[in-house]
């Protein structure tokens, strides 16, 4: 650029009080490449902007430096003014003479000289600016939601209700997730299924939602607005179109003693089964691992009884590909099983159960029809001990974090127990009671004060079985001066830690999203971008980020949905062109990129792809890096990493930054 205009703003007296603006303009006029320089009282005012526009036209300027307030303030204003005068807005740079100079220094020669230096630096930078055009990326107006728990259901419904199509993928035979397993929910004690199942049905019936259950995401390619997801539809061995859901097969299946997942092993199911009565879709699948026919080659009872001939033993897994513009990951979490805890008997004691098992016992649809009965002998336990923080907040167990929901559900469990077993005694061992949330603290107080739950502050050292077969819980009461206490129990309920799902890491790698050391998915920013990932276009909701309760899960789901909707409401994504670019040049070099691809790991956004450069015969000459402008966020880490300087970043290019640094030190 050879004709730079420099415009020095007084900002009323904000700049001119300590900086001699006229002198800065004068010095700028002398700088190489500067064709016009002036100062003015308020550059950002309409007359000020008009002055810039007029100068651009009159002097045919091909670059502009405005010395004014911080670019974080008025860069858009001045760039717009330039654009209005026909100058590419990216040929305008802002010299920060206010926040970085006039406001922080006293009036004097040094302050004015510094202002001149700053302007000099940016004049040299802008002389090397390139005209840029915003990047447009088309958007596929369809979303993929992975996980059909309450988070996925909520997100899918929110997006679908905005008129966008949604693919909802659930790996189990039914949607519903953990929430479908719960009895009643804190702090209102309303029935979980009563509030959930209508939503499940809504999902199934929504014209904008395509539901794939018993399905998993196989791979994801592409980038924001343009993902391509391959989904594996696991063979259900039941033709869904023919099946009417009559349930006859499940009553006839000879294999009836399979521990049911939905009931957390406390109840049984058949090999051809519907996980629970309100399942959506309410059609059975055959669990091949337990099916006599698949395992031994004989049986086919279900086939014989099926009135519609829906059983299809030879059905293979199917793969379908969906193009989507956005992805919401709502794969949830799981709780640790009792077998994780040696001190509580490694799961050997049948009456030591997890909180989620207790939910099934307390649930009206559960194996005991909502009566609290011991798994071992079916009797009603008279003494129940609840142990909070099982695994959580225990660095020794590798889980230093708080699982967040346990304090509340333990209080709920104790309360439910007291409501159902009026002469029962319940004791809760806790470390701290964390009941932050609307009506939460009141809820816990109610358990203690109205339902007379015995809260003991202390860790439980061990649970053991006495010779007489009674369970004994040994712990300390720290409020009694770390006194050892031993409590007999008919049943022990462990509030085991919420942890990431087993396949979380693998899924994160498929999606190229980051995860924390516990394999929970990482948000782009913990405060300001809590439902986004670092990969543009992929969002998070619910307990796959960290254990969350239902309200928080639903809130994040709606938040993620809002992000998706705002993305899908655009035909094109328009992005700042300040992105990295891998150079291309004439043959025989094609690009100075040597294709080591070490930059790929430097990129937090997976924006660096491989491109094969081919000759006319289609033979690969070399493989070089290419930046996907849809994914690149413009941090420039790859630029300073690239050994051969084959990557550069627009707007902060090597040449620009080099020139600016040198120019700042120009005066002697």
């Amino acid at each position, binding site marked *: 650029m050879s004709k730079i205009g420099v415009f020095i703003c007084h900002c009323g007296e904000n700049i001119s009080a300590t900086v001699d603006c006229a002198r800065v303009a004068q010095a700028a006029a*002398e700088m*190489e490449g500067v064709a016009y320089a002036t100062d003015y009282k308020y550059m950002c005012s309409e007359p000020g902007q008009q002055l810039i526009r007029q100068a651009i036209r009159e002097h045919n300027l091909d670059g502009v430096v405005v010395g004014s307030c911080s670019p974080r303030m008025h860069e858009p204003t001045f760039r717009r003014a330039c654009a209005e005068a026909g100058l590419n807005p990216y040929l305008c740079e802002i010299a920060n003479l206010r926040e970085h100079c006039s406001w922080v220094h006293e009036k004097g020669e040094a302050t004015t000289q510094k202002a001149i230096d700053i302007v000099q630096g940016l004049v040299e930078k802008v002389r090397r600016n390139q005209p840029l055009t915003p990047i447009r990326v088309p958007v596929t107006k369809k979303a993929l939601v992975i996980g059909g728990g309450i988070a996925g259901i909520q997100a899918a419904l929110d997006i679908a209700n905005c008129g966008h199509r949604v693919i909802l993928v659930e790996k189990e035979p039914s949607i519903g997730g953990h929430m479908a397993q719960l009895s009643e929910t804190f702090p209102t004690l309303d029935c979980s299924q009563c509030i959930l199942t209508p939503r499940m049905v809504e999902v199934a019936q929504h014209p904008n939602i395509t539901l794939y259950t018993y399905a998993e995401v196989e791979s994801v390619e592409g980038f924001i607005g343009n993902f391509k997801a391959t989904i594996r539809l696991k063979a259900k061995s039941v033709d869904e179109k023919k099946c009417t859901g009559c349930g006859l097969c499940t009553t006839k299946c000879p294999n009836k003693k399979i521990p049911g997942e939905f009931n957390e092993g406390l109840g049984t199911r058949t090999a051809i089964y519907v996980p629970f009565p309100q399942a959506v879709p309410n059609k059975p699948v055959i669990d091949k691992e337990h099916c006599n026919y698949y395992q031994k080659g004989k049986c086919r009872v279900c086939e014989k009884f099926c009135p519609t001939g829906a059983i299809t033993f030879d059905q293979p897994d199917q793969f379908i590909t969906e193009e989507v513009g956005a992805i919401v990951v709502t794969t949830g979490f799981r709780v640790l099983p009792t077998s994780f805890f040696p001190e509580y008997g490694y799961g050997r004691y049948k009456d030591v159960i997890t909180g989620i098992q207790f939910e099934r016992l307390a649930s009206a649809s559960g194996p005991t029809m909502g009566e609290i009965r011991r798994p071992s002998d079916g009797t009603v336990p008279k003494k129940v001990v609840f142990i909070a923080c099982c695994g959580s907040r225990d660095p020794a167990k590798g889980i230093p974090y708080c699982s967040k929901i346990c304090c509340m559900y333990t209080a709920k469990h104790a309360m439910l127990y007291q409501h159902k077993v009026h002469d029962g005694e319940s004791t809760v061992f806790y470390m701290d009671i964390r009941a932050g949330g609307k009506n939460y603290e009141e809820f816990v107080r109610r358990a203690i004060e109205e339902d007379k739950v015995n809260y003991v502050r202390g860790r439980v050292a061990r649970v053991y079985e006495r010779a007489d077969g009674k369970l004994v819980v040994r712990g300390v009461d720290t409020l009694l001066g770390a006194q050892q206490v031993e409590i007999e129990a008919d049943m022990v309920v462990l509030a085991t830690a919420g942890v990431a799902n087993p396949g979380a890491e693998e899924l994160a790698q498929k999606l190229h999203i980051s995860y924390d050391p516990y394999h929970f998915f990482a948000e782009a920013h913990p405060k300001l971008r809590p439902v986004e990932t670092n990969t543009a276009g992929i969002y998070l909701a619910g307990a796959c980020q960290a254990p969350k309760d239902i309200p928080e899960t639903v809130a994040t789901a709606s938040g993620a949905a809002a992000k998706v909707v705002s993305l899908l409401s655009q035909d094109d994504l328009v992005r700042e062109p300040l992105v990295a670019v891998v150079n291309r*040049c*004439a*043959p*025989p*070099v094609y690009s100075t990129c040597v294709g080591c691809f070490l930059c790929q790991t430097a990129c937090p956004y997976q924006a660096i792809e491989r491109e094969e450069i081919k000759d006319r015969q289609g033979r690969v000459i070399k493989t070089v890096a290419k930046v996907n402008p849809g994914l690149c966020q413009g941090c420039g880490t790859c630029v300073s990493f690239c050994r051969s300087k084959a990557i550069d970043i627009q707007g902060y290019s090597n040449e620009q930054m080099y020139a600016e640094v*040198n*120019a700042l*030190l*120009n*005066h002697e």
Partner: protein
Amino acid sequence: MKNYQIKHSDLDGWLEKIIAAGRRVIAPVTEEGHTDFRPIHSPAEVAADDQVQTIQSAKQAAFPKAETLFSYRKEGTAVSLDQPAPESYLQTVVWRARPCDAAGFTPLSAIFNWDYKDNLYNARLARTTLVAFSCQQADAYCFCTSVGGGPGEKKGCDILVTKLPSGKALVEVCTEKGEALAALAPGLFSEANAVADDSPLFAEKQSALAQLPARFSKEDIRRHLAEAFDSPVWREQSERCLGCGACAFVCPTCACFDIQEDPHGSHGRRIRCWDSCAFALFTQHTSGHNPRPSQATRWRQRILHKFSYMPERLDATGCTGCGRCSRACPVDMNLLEHLTSIAQK
């Protein structure tokens, strides 16, 4: 010019006088077992006279690895230029160069003056006095006698010193610059006779010189090269070449250079610096097209330039047989071996 004799033991005294006269003296210095030309300030710094060669040649005295061509200053739209002053080039003595170093200045001067006169080089050369010492030993890489030089050859020397077995050294002064240097220590020298081919002094000098039978002749090489452009020999010989510039930079006759800018804001300098035809980018066009696209073509250029093109255009051979390139080559490209094989083809 006159000839003198000086005792071996007085050579240091003479050098001391030269240093005391304010000359910059560059001499072989041994550091960590390797000997190269370095500026010295006392005769004690000079390496023992038992090595064949320094790593680099003496060409840097007149053709430094980087030098200022001119400087500029920009003020507003105006530019003013300033030239180096020849007086700023130090009066330099290259002490204990070898005859092959001295011989190198003939082709260098030819390159720098065959058409336009390169007055920067000329001014530096005019301020350089070469005190060469005849070679009393040669190694496997030496082949000066095959390219027209010799261990006691005076061509290009300002002074040639030959240490004689007698304990005296024969000092043959070849130029006025040399005479001026001898004049700095008149007391140390005794006059000697002219060294005619049949004189006893000549015989004594010959007896003190390294024995190095010629392996081929320049003419042989040139004749073979005339037909060799498309020969497979270039690829064969250059296969292991790494494409570095070591051979060119230690060579006493390589003069390829680059012109570069040294900007310091509004002022700066234009610099000339060594370059090498072995570098892939040396001839590459901005478009990416490269007239010499492979190391084989670049190796061919190096040999043809020195042994065919230069003799034809400049009447000079671009090689003094010093063997430095072979010693410096990281992959043992042996010029003598390669030339011999060409000459035998």
